[in-house]
């Protein structure tokens, strides 16, 4: 087990370094000169070519690309991702202060999607080809077909503007505040994100439970006189949910993509909103920092998924 975990960690570190090289090369290939980007337009008039060349030399932009990469990578390792071209604040700080809201949004959404997916998937599996089963299928098809940002706009129209029940944007009311205030702001984006995540999870719970229900031990439990409810909840459902942690880990990166878009719709002050703004402003250091954060998150989720699966099913380690 330890050897397996160590090997997976090493593989993930190598992949992370490769992604780092890829992002670095992309930034170098990107249009625009970082030095010109860092100089305010009003200063640019005085800044002669000689000055820009001096800055390039100072920043090491004239060094061989491998040297530049090594320097950038070592800085990134120590948490120094440079400063934003626009606000001039350190990127690591900008990202860190936005991590909390995104985690709050995603974890609430994950909770909602589990609350929908486990009961719905269970009923759909037990009552196959009934209206509940079709509703579950319609949900999964609906959430992969209707863009979540459009659902968000419709929700704002109905619940904020027509009914006036919920605030339409931000994470808290300026001046006001408290837990309930944040909760009110959280409901709509988290519910929509949770609904989107519930689609694939419901499919998974349904399929996995159907497989378990045909297993021999289920027939044994029934033969021993267990009530249908007991057989499902105490025997089959428990076994079918064992790999759930792996499925959740695989779905978290997809959920992050949904969060990036919904943060934009609901002006939620998370990493996605920061990243989209950075992209429209061509703020390369922030984009790179965001990309590395996402890569780290995806790789960590993969790693947990692999390890959790290996614990559940020891045969995985052998292959």
């Amino acid at each position, binding site marked *: 087990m330890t050897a397996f975990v160590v090997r997976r960690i090493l593989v993930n570190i190598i*992949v992370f370094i490769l992604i780092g090289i890829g*992002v670095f090369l*992309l*930034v170098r*290939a*990107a*249009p625009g000169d970082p030095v010109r980007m860092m100089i305010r337009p009003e200063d640019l008039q005085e800044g002669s070519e000689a000055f820009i060349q001096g800055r390039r030399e100072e920043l090491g932009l004239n060094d061989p690309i491998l040297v530049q990469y090594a320097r950038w990578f070592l800085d990134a390792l120590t948490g120094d991702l440079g400063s934003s071209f626009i606000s001039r604040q350190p990127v690591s700080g900008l990202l860190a202060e936005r991590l909390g809201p995104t985690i709050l949004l995603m974890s609430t959404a994950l909770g909602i999607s589990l609350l929908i997916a486990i009961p719905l998937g269970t009923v759909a599996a037990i009552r196959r*080809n009934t209206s509940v089963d*079709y509703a*579950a*299928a*319609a949900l*999964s*098809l*609906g959430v*992969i*077909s*209707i*863009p979540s*940002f*459009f659902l968000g*706009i*419709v929700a*704002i*129209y109905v619940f*904020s*503007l027509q009914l006036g029940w919920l605030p*339409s*944007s931000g994470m808290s009311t300026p001046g006001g505040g408290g837990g309930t205030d944040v909760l009110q702001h959280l409901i709509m984006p988290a519910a929509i994100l949770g609904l989107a995540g519930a689609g*694939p999870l419901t*499919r*998974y719970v349904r*399929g996995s439970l*159907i497989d378990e229900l045909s297993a021999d031990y289920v027939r044994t439990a029934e033969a021993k006189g267990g009530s249908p409810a007991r057989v499902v909840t105490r025997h089959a459902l428990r076994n079918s949910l064992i790999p759930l942690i792996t499925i959740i880990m*695989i779905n978290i*990166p*997809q959920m*992050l*993509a949904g969060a*990036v*878009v919904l943060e*934009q*719709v609901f002006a939620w002050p998370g990493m996605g909103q920061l*990243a*989209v703004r*950075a*992209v*429209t402003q*061509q703020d*390369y250091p922030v*984009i790179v920092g*965001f*990309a590395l954060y*996402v*890569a780290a998150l*995806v790789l960590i*989720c*993969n790693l947990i998924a692999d390890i959790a699966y290996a614990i559940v099913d020891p045969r995985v380690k052998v292959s």
Partner: protein
Amino acid sequence: MSDLRPSLDTPDVAAAEEVVAAEATATGVRTQRRSPAAMAVRRFKRNKVAVAGGVFLLIILVLALFAPLIAQQSPTAVDLGQIRRPPSGEHWLGTDASGRDVFARLLYAARVSLLVGVFAALVSVLLGTVIGAVAGLFGGWVDTLLMRTADMVLSFPPIVVIIVLAGLLGPSIPILIIAIAATTWPTPARLVRGVTLTVREREYLHAARVAGASRGWLLRKHIVPAAMGQIVVVGTLLVAQAILAEAVLSFLGLGVQPPQASWGNMLNDAQSLTVIQSMPWLWLPPGLAIAATVLAVNFVGDGLRDAVDPRQSGRS
């Protein structure tokens, strides 16, 4: 992810009948022979939801192709005297913030959205087919390397990767198509690799190899035809994904750039509360167009999957 998609129909019975019919054909009981493709078409036609989706897509396609004839107004003509007017006889769906006709923009946007969707799916399928076939034919470390890469690409959320790529390389339609293809190729690649591995051991492939066929020949004449049905299915579902990706990216302002209209960038205006509140004609039509089109493509894709391989039906 295609295996997670449900089908709303239950073609099992129809499919079973077809299998029986196919066996009957094979044993010569029936004199009339049907090709697998013809049988798939028959099965597809029995799936009402899929056919309805197909008809809907045809209508959208016709509307997009004949946009200049149908729309009386120009999609890009700015009329600052007629800003944000509600729907009227002159402007069927009103006008936007620059006084442009929303109905005309909706039709012309269909062209861009469908074009991006279809081209991105095509590039992705081409890339995936070649990579999958190379992995399957060469085997060994080439296979390991390519499939590990595919797993890795698949674990990254496409939208986030495309946002980063569009941010670093600048937003444009070609970048959008390349970025979508670059993040979605693993699905067709895995499929084609699987088919290659099964076909590789068949006698006709040994025969072709002994006769001196090159790998390119094997790919074109044996592997692609064997995988064609499933490639079409995966390709169709990728079109749905690509249309959604275009919509999201353009909504964020990172995809198709104005004045050119796409369904996604028409929704870009709806980031202001005033627009959402009092001008629903600006955001409701493009939003519904995206949802309905993607739903229709998914219906067709699911119908095709059941038609091509009845055993792989979405209902288990």
